[in-house]
């Protein structure tokens, strides 16, 4: 409890004690009305003086119609009608409710903040004499040597100088597989060192480090308000005055009509009903539970490595019906790999790869690199000489004294051999000729991420209307990828500018309520990311550009996270809707009952506090999602 909360708590206890004493005295002794008034007014002022003060203050500043005003009018009215007990009870319950609300919100704030507990408390700065000093991370300059012991968080982004270890990145990415690092590797702040001590040289200041960026982003996220939140704020603006005027009408009109009709006016009953009406009407359950739900949802997403930059984006994601993907690096790994080896004329897979990798050993082209990777070892440079590149065709080299050609079909014509059989296993085919003999072909392609197919299927299951690939790649390749993972529409051979046009066309064609999301890797697609209703960047860990450009940022590059983000979004929205409907329904039902004198003031206060508590507890459910 905060000091403020404790003070209210003590006042509540005191008021309860005085009320009990007053009840006891008035039950045991015959006391007159004036003495009774004094006895009950003591606890009334103990518990309600600040409400009265605030209400008075509000009237002074022409800010009537807030909760304090409602409570003050309702209880003073009850006192004037001689219902001392009721006025004390209403004030008491109201304060208990407020205390409970403030405790519940404080608790939720803390538990959501705990989901994002990545802020490091200190950095172990290594001084020139080898001593270690615990320092505030904000004080550490770029280029400082820091130590990270097992179990500690990496406080600032840096490069490993000494030590090899595994890092737990789950607080950033939601990914539980540890990342191995060795000297020369970049490490991002927020990771936890799992195995052995690490010495780092910082490459950024704390304020520019990954942790700060993420925290700032999440903290600001609740400032971008969703439509539901704006609706509630607007609603509350009209609701409270409307309720006050209704209460006034309820207090005056029926008795006056009765008077005109010649009946007894029953002023007492109608005024009391009007006061009950006022008590029921407090809008706080609604006003608090909606932003709380969104905040809990955003907290849940960050726990899974999904950063949502605003409640509005979390809300929009639930309405996303069109998903447009970039291909390379998003659905595919963006790294070439050997996907098929077809030896001929007595060569084996191993020997074919050996000749290809050896001839390509001097090149850093992605295709050469993929051949070397597939071969599994660094080709022995002693056995290779006379490497010569033939532009647009491939390379030729002498391997173990044999002339080898590695390249495309044209190069095989040049080498004077026929390609025996064509296989079509990938995006590019590499042909190999050894000493005038055709040795076979190797298929190389950009590999589809293992979870891409599953991710698209999961999205479709959630009612996505259309999935689209936009790529600069050739048509054959794009269509093969699309077929393999179940994408509906392919637009290939696009220039970067064309992508924006394609997205514009899709935006124009979709329904008004439907949203379009673009998923990219944040490199070269910033214009599209910002043009789409929701821009999602993947694999953003350590990439500031992607974090800047997108609305939703996936820290790792697993496309399945998109479906997870959508589930979190619809779960949050479901809870928001439940709260709106539940709070409004109970409120209006009680207002109705109160207006006809069926609900008493006691029930009214329970309705108000109860609805609020249930709505807050319900909102907290948005923090969890089944995996």
């Amino acid at each position: 409890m905060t000091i403020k909360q404790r003070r209210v708590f003590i006042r509540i206890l005191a008021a309860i004690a005085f009320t009990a004493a007053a009840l006891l005295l008035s039950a045991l002794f015959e006391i007159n009305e004036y003495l009774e008034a004094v006895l009950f007014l003591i606890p009334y002022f103990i518990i309600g003086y600040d409400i009265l003060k605030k209400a008075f203050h509000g009237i002074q500043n022409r800010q009537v119609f807030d909760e304090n005003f409602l409570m003050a009018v309702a209880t003073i009215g009850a006192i004037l009608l001689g219902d001392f007990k009721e006025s004390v009870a209403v004030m008491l319950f109201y304060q208990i409710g407020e205390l409970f609300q403030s405790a519940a919100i404080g608790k939720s704030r803390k538990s959501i903040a705990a989901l994002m507990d990545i802020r490091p408390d200190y950095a172990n700065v290594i001084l020139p004499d080898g001593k270690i000093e615990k320092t505030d991370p904000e004080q550490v300059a770029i280029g400082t040597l820091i130590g990270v012991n097992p179990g500690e968080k990496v406080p600032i982004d840096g490069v490993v100088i000494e030590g090899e270890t595994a890092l737990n990145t789950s607080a950033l990415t939601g990914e539980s597989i540890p990342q191995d690092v060795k000297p020369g590797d970049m490490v991002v702040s927020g990771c936890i060192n799992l195995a052995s001590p690490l010495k780092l040289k910082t490459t950024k200041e704390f304020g520019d480090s990954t942790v700060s960026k993420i925290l700032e982003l999440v903290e600001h996220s609740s400032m971008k308000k969703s439509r539901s939140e704006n609706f509630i704020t607007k609603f509350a603006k009209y609701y409270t005055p409307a309720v006050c005027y209704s209460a006034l009408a309820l207090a005056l009109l029926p008795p006056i009509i009765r008077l005109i009709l010649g009946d007894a006016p029953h002023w007492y009953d109608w005024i009391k009903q009007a006061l009950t009406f006022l008590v029921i009407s407090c809008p706080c359950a609604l006003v608090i539970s909606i932003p709380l739900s969104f905040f809990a949802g955003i907290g849940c997403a960050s726990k899974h490595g999904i950063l949502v930059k605003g409640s509005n984006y979390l809300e929009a994601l639930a309405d996303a019906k069109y998903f447009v993907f970039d291909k390379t690096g998003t659905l595919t790994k963006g790294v070439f790999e050997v996907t098929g080896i077809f030896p001929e004329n007595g060569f084996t897979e191993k020997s074919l790869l050996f000749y290809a990798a050896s001839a390509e050993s001097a090149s850093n082209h992605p295709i050469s690199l993929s051949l070397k990777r597939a071969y599994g070892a660094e080709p022995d440079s002693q056995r290779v000489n006379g490497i010569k590149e033939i532009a647009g065709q491939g390379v030729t080299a002498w391997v173990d004294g044999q002339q080898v050609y590695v390249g495309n079909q044209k190069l095989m014509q040049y080498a004077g051999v026929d390609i025996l059989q064509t296989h079509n296993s990938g995006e590019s085919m590499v042909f190999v000729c050894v000493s005038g003999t055709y040795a076979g072909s190797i298929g190389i392609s950009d590999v589809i991420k293992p979870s891409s197919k599953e991710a698209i299927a999961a999205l479709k299951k959630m009612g996505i209307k259309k999935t689209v690939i936009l790529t600069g790649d050739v048509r054959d390749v794009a269509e093969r990828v699309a077929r393999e993972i179940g994408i509906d529409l392919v637009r290939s051979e696009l220039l970067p500018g064309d992508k924006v046009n394609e997205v514009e066309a899709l935006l124009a064609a979709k329904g008004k309520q439907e949203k379009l999301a673009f998923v990219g890797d944040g490199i070269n697609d910033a214009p599209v990311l910002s043009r789409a209703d929701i821009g999602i960047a993947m694999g953003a860990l350590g990439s500031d550009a992607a974090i800047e450009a997108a609305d939703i940022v996936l820290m790792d590059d697993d496309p399945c996270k998109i479906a997870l983000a959508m589930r979190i979004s619809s779960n949050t929205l479901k809870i928001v809707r439940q709260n709106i409907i539940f709070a409004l329904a109970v409120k209006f039902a009680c207002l109705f009952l109160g207006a006809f004198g069926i609900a008493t003031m006691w029930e009214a206060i329970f309705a108000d506090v109860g609805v609020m508590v249930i709505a807050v507890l319900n909102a907290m459910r948005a923090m969890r999602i089944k995996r």
Partner: protein
Amino acid sequence: MKKTYGIEVDCANCAAKMEEAVKATPGIKNACLSFMTLKLNVEFEEGVDTDSVMRKALKNCKKIESDCEIYL
């Protein structure tokens, strides 16, 4: 120019009113308040003295909700 301030306010409804009051203060272009993180983001107009503007904003807030605070 943008600045972020810590705030103290008790209820969500009051927070919404506080935001309105800050927005209405001369010298402030836009303001956004998060009740969840108890932070206030203020965008100032060009060339104003942020401190004096914020003191005025706080005064406006106190008018509508006596129980609030902006940590300047």
